[in-house]
């Protein structure tokens, strides 16, 4: 579903990704773990070309999206993304946030988009917030809306970029619960998170990233119980 071949990414002189090879199967839940600045988020952002790799190829569902002729909008609408800072549209109500892209991009009728949105809002437990502006919501509520907004596009892949890092501790759980429910639906998911317990519970696979490289790629139990590299051991000692 998602393939990386020798992906490099430089920001000016800084080499952030140093030859990433990765293959994520359809329906897999993969969590990227590693110290800050290791390149986890950059890997995630290369999957929908919010960052364009300096070299190498990224293949989504059989299509090489790094080729110049690719319609990137078309690729992106099938890949939902959830951000650390939610990025809801502050000038639109919750309902308008939910229906804007489905109407604009997927050409849904307003009625269909709203039916779909209500269904998703029910799923994240916020159906009563339809006509509220994001400014009135708590962080946890915002993030649940952001997840629902991404899902409204019916993506095949969901990317989560530190979805709970900007939340107050008491709101982390409600967001993780939504993500966990989602992981049972068979959608392909890639997460970047610092919630180690959650990563272990929800993932099929853990990739440990350090200094722009994937150092370990293992099942959660294997990774957390028997990390192979010294750097992973040192990292886990600090965070667990």
């Amino acid at each position, binding site marked *: 579903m998602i393939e990386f071949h020798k992906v490099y990414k430089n920001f000016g002189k800084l080499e952030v990704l140093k030859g990433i090879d990765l293959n994520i199967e359809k329906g897999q839940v993969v969590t990227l773990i590693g110290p800050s600045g290791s390149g986890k988020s950059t890997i995630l952002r290369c999957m*929908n070309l*919010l960052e364009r790799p300096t070299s190498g190829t990224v293949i989504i569902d059989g299509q090489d999206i790094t080729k110049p002729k690719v319609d990137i*909008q*078309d690729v*992106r*609408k*099938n*890949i*939902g*993304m959830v*951000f650390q*800072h*939610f*990025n*809801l*549209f*502050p*000038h*639109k*109500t919750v309902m308008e946030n939910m229906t*804007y*892209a489905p109407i*604009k*991009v997927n050409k849904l009728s307003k009625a269909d988009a709203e039916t779909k949105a209500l269904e998703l809002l029910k799923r994240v437990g916020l159906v009563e917030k339809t006509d*509220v*502006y994001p*400014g*009135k919501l708590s962080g946890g509520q915002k993030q649940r809306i*952001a997840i629902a*907004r*991404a899902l409204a*596009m019916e993506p095949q892949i969901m*990317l989560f970029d530190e979805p709970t890092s900007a939340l107050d501790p008491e709101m982390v759980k409600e967001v993780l619960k939504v993500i966990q429910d989602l992981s049972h639906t068979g959608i392909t998911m890639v997460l970047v998170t610092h919630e180690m317990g959650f990563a272990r519970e929800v993932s099929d696979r853990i990739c440990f990233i350090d200094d722009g490289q994937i150092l370990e790629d293992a099942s959660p139990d294997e990774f957390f119980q028997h990390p192979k590299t010294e750097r992973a051991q040192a990292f886990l000692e600090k965070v667990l």
Partner: protein
Amino acid sequence: MKLDFSSVWQYWPFLYHGALLTLKITLICTVLGFILGTLLSLLKLTKCKPLVWIANFYTSIFRGTPLLVQLCIIHFGIPQLIGITFTTTQSGILTFSLNSAAYVSEILRGGIVGVDKGQYEASMSLGVGYKDMMKDIIFPQAIRSILPGLVNEGISLLKESSILSYIGAVELLRAADQITVLTFRFFEPYLVIALIYYVMVMILTLFANRLERWLNRSDRVS
């Protein structure tokens, strides 16, 4: 000291026509300046370096020289160069529009650049195209920080239009000059036009505040 406003009222048509010209020029230049400024700001936001340079150069010229000098070059200088003469009103409109465009383009650019990067990323990740993103997501948020700047620009246009009296356009200030010549009274005519300017600016501000409140309606609920 005795004030005598009756001599001013006697010539009120002067002031009336002067105020009309001031308003007319302000209105036209605000609109033209906004259109031209929008185009300039679009150039500044492209990735094409030469276009950005051209737009930045234009801005620096009009911001880096006095408005009165620009007016003199256009009204007295250009006719000598290409043989076309402008009326004072035409020169005024041309100068103020070109000048205002430079400032407006900076206000717009600043407002658009000031919108959180996350808004672009969220739109892009949802597959929204560049045009829709700018129109529906970025610009409606930029307008909140842009609007106060635009109002200031309108206000300064209104006040600066008084320098058109220098080339002989009979706007408010020139109208007052004429009254002083006819009545030998100075304080009263100038005081009266100061008041007229002030009232016009206040009306503009009041209108802008209303608009701003309306634009910020999504914040008010919180």
